[in-house]
């Protein structure tokens, strides 16, 4: 963690409300008064049960969804839509099935010479550990490999911020843990600001600098928990488990025992 305390927030979410209009034209509140800031280089995890509006919140912040009140600014500019300088990783890999891994990763790049493009693509394919699979089509990859390709695609344009919507939600437990390690390694190397939505408490404690805990219906910020773990995060260390317990207790009442 770096010392950014005095610095202004890189991403700022203020007074964000969102409603869905239901069939009987009744308003259903999805998000209620969301306020928080993210510093440059910070990793924020948004944790909540499914249906709490955490993905909706992420879509609002990255600009995929603009029908809400309140403001979202990134680097001082209001977000009015997505742009190619912000990376996105979804739960499904969302690779284009008709393009190879290299073509998928390079899709976002514009105005580069062939050689520059090839070098960049190769760099990020290597970074996510997919060397040798440049010419494979997505259907030839396993779930974890496809998600790596998705991460390489999101990173190749050097995004100022990376949004991840339950990126490892569909992976098996082993792949998931190794992907979390990879993501942490990549984040440290690139110092990218990251906003990650998850329902996996362990994942949040492992990755985040701060964890935003959300309550459901309507989705509100219940609590923001700083994760003050330095160096390597051992999932079984006392400090790690202590933070996990704080988050866990936000969701499940432990007072009457197991």
């Amino acid at each position, binding site marked *: 963690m770096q010392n950014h305390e005095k610095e202004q927030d890189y991403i700022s979410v203020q007074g964000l409300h969102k409603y869905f209009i239901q069939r009987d034209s009744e308003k259903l509140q999805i998000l209620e008064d969301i306020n928080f800031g993210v510093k440059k280089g910070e990793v924020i995890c948004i944790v909540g049960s499914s249906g709490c509006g955490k993905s909706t919140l992420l879509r609002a912040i990255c*600009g*995929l969804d603009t029908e809400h009140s309140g403001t979202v600014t990134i680097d001082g500019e209001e977000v009015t839509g*997505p*742009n190619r300088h912000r990376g*996105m990783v979804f739960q499904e890999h*969302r690779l284009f*099935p008709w393009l190879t891994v290299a073509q998928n990763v390079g*899709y976002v790049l514009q105005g580069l010479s062939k050689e520059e493009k090839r070098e960049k693509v190769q760099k990020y394919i290597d970074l996510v550990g997919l060397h040798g699979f440049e010419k494979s089509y997505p259907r030839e990859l396993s779930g974890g490999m496809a998600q790596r390709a998705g991460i390489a695609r999101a990173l190749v344009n050097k995004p100022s911020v990376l949004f991840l919507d339950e990126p490892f939600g569909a992976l098996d437990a082993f792949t998931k843990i190794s992907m979390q390690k990879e993501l942490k390694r990549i984040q440290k190397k690139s110092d990218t600001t990251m906003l990650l939505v998850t329902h996996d408490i362990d994942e949040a404690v492992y990755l985040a600098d701060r964890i935003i805990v959300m309550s459901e219906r309507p989705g509100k910020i219940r609590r923001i928990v700083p994760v003050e773990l330095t160096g390597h995060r051992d999932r079984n260390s006392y400090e790690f488990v202590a933070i996990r317990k704080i988050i866990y207790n936000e969701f499940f009442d432990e007072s009457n025992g197991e």
Partner: protein
Amino acid sequence: MSKSAAKNVGYIAEYMVLVVTIIVVWIVMGSTGHLNPVIMPSPGKVGNTIVSLVASGELWENLAVSVLRVLQGYLLAAVLGIVLGILIGLSHHLDRLTALLIQLIKPIPPIAWIPLVILWFGIGESGKIFLIFLGGFFTILINVIDGIRQTDVKLIEVSKSMETPFLKHIFLMVIPSAAPNIFTGLRTGLSSCWMCVVAAELVSSTTGLGYLIMNARQFGKTDVVIVGMLTIGIIGKIMDSLLRLAEKRVIRWK
């Protein structure tokens, strides 16, 4: 013989068995005198006719004329069908504007157009090509529209969020996604075009396979009729196979 080779022979046998059976039954019925040669000539007679039609060049001439007509009408149908299909598939306004017209014209068989086509174009080449075009166009158009419409919205979102330039979005995202449907349209469209060329030539022509068949009927030459029919079948099958091959080459990701 290895196991897989034996399997292959099995597949080929299965593939051929119906056609071979029909030919055998035909030969047997012909040689036992169960066929009236005026209505249904024997295979031997048809074989002789093939040889003489090939030798005289008559078959090639008529075949070449028909193939050329099909290719012209089909090419026109394919280009317009794909371009308009993409535009309509992308624009909801254009779709609403054209949907009713397309749905009304589509069920009219191209043969029903023949009287008008003769009046409009006369009995020259352009009328026939127009008819062939009609036969292929709607099939291709509708398949392309469907294909574009079925593009995964999640993938569109990815491409849009990367601020992909319009043409790149069309060529690297929209068209590949619709490619399987486009090929289905191209293949069914081609067989419609073959139906139309024969219909057009049956009515108003002095060349082509349709003419060959119609002319032979008037002289009671059923052997020539059958040779004409077989030729259409074989050429149609070959063209379809070529399209399948192209499809496999283009859609490598499946």
